């Protein structure tokens, strides 16, 4: 039912016993579900949003557990649990093979999936807030391509050209290079698409296409000059996959992603205000320039880190925030944490599908997210054309 109809419906309904009416008046005495429905009718979705976040925490934990337990090899779960609950030592509970499969293959993979999914979904949500448009997504507008260029540059030229620098930053070389690529693209995109505080959607999408093509061309040149080993690295990386997950990769990407995720809640109110335009946000007391700078750097950092470890996994950043907006509304105070949780869950589940659908081989996860995400994206376009100023 439309919320406004719900309001009038309540008023128009024949009044029950006056005593009953007295009882239902304060919202606190209602059952949680009825309370949420009353809130919804009154345009308040905050309680629903908090409930959904709690539910998502549970779902994420379940998905994480399921991911560690499933796979082509049937490493025994009861044995793992026996070890985890402390009834037996690791050596006694698990065979060496199972221990390696679970601790060194599946666990890092699930952790990486969680991190990358959260990073991609939150980047999408922040970018949509920044551009004030639900179609902005790091994958769609070329930010991922820019990050990819940075990563490819590092893989191909890293050892030779940036040798000393490479040695200095070590495991962070790839994420940092991807971050710089993403930062440059986001910055260019914002300068091109935004004039006087107004962002043109058409310019944003088209500039994204151009920037992605440019980054792709440079990447092509680099692939051309790459040697055989580098080519193999590039191919695996470019498919978009969590297959290469290792604790070393996590050590490189996790600090950047976790730092970005820690910053993002402080952007929520500012991004909400930005919905009404840059001038209105300033009128409401938001330091707009600082907000934009922090948002751009955060998006670039988390997209860069995610792309560096998992290649180009598309559509998470657009699908997740959109689904959540349908459920709990666009308030970034709830949308951003919920996006992190749902994004992580989605990627873990997609990865489970990727590695179990054609055993013992596995599908690149980017293919799965594209199969699910691309039709969804088209559906968004058809459904909301008028609302997005297209």
């Amino acid at each position, binding site marked *: 039912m439309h919320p406004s109809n719900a309001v009038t419906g309540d008023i128009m309904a024949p009044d029950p016993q006056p005593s009953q009416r007295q009882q239902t008046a304060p919202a606190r005495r209602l059952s949680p579900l009825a309370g949420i429905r009353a809130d919804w009718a009154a345009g308040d979705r905050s309680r629903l949003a908090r409930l959904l976040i709690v539910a998502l925490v549970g779902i994420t934990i379940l998905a994480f557990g399921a991911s560690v337990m499933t796979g082509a090899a049937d490493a025994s779960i009861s044995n793992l649990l026996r070890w985890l609950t402390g009834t037996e030592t690791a050596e006694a509970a698990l065979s060496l093979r199972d221990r390696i499969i679970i601790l060194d293959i599946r666990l890092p993979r699930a952790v990486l999936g969680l991190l990358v999914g959260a990073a991609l979904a939150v980047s999408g949500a922040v970018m949509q807030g920044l551009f*004030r448009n639900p179609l902005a997504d790091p994958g769609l507008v070329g930010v991922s391509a820019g990050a990819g260029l940075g990563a490819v540059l590092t893989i191909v030229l890293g050892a030779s050209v940036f040798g000393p620098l490479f040695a200095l930053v070590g495991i962070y070389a790839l994420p940092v290079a991807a971050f710089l690529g993403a930062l440059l693209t986001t910055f260019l995109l914002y300068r091109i698409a935004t004039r006087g505080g107004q962002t043109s959607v058409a310019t944003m999408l088209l500039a994204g296409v151009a920037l992605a093509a440019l980054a792709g061309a440079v990447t092509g040149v680099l692939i051309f000059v790459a040697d055989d080993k580098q080519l193999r690295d590039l191919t695996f990386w470019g498919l978009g996959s969590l297959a290469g997950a290792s604790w070393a990769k996590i050590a490189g990407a996790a600090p950047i992603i976790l730092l970005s995720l820690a910053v993002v809640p402080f952007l929520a109110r500012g991004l909400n205000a930005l919905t009404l335009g840059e001038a209105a946000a300033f*009128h409401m007391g938001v330091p707009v320039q600082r907000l934009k700078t922090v948002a751009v750097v955060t998006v670039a950092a988390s997209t860069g880190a995610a792309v560096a470890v998992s290649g180009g996994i598309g559509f998470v950043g657009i699908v997740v925030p959109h689904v959540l907006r349908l459920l709990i509304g666009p308030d970034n105070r709830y949308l951003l944490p919920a996006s992190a949780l749902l994004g992580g869950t989605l990627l873990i589940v997609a990865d489970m599908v990727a590695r179990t659908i054609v055993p013992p081989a596995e599908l690149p996860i980017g293919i799965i997210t594209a199969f699910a995400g691309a039709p969804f994206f088209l559906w968004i376009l058809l459904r909301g054309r008028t609302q997005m100023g297209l």
Partner: protein
Amino acid sequence: MIEALNVHVRLGSKAVLHDVCLTARAGELTAIVGPNGSGKTTTMKALAGEIACDGRVLIGDDDIRSLKPWQLATRRAVLPQASIISFPFTVREIVRMGLTVGASTTRANGMPADPGLVDRITQDALEAVDLGGFAGRFYQELSGGEQQRVQLARALSQIWEPVRDGRPAFLLLDEPVSSLDIRHQLTIMRLAADYCRRGGGVVAIMHDLNLTAMFADHIVMMKDGRVVEAGPPVSVLTDEMVETVFGCPMRVSALPPAGIPFVLPQTAIL
């Protein structure tokens, strides 16, 4: 009081405001009138602290350039011209934005006050603009006039108390009645007048000279980026001024003293 002292604004290479001086006092409704392109909105932007300008803009005793955005937000709120949003916020969520970033519901330590107060001000602000039952509606589904009133409720809730800590707050309204029907034009102008009566100040860009004459305490007339005349309605709204500023010769009329019948030719039935 808000004061503009010798304000010059250039947009690109074009000088838009020349040496604008104006004073808007607390307790008064100050109307800015003038033809299209005379610099009214730019003046408003300068008063809001939104654009860079030469000269000084004071709110109370403070230069607005010395105040942080969140400090300014506790002293003045702005109703912009039509705003389009691309996310499905409800009316309540929009109005509450004014409260979560504004000052009405924050305590001295910066923590938000109790949610009950937030809900109450949200509801009161919506009722003040005659949108009492609209909290659950989606902003994007409202008509232009309704959206404008939601924005006004949002601005109003940001500085809900006309006087706070002994300092008056100011509502800056850019064409507040431009897309409203006659009844709501009166509702909003009365609301603005009431805000002044309770000690706050209002600066409004107006196009309707009759409404202006009816509600304004002080009129600032602008033309070609300059202030041409300022003062109370009776001294500013004259035949000569209207012709000079708007380039359109018209009669400014006043009702004859009470009790004397008069006849307007437009009422003739042919």
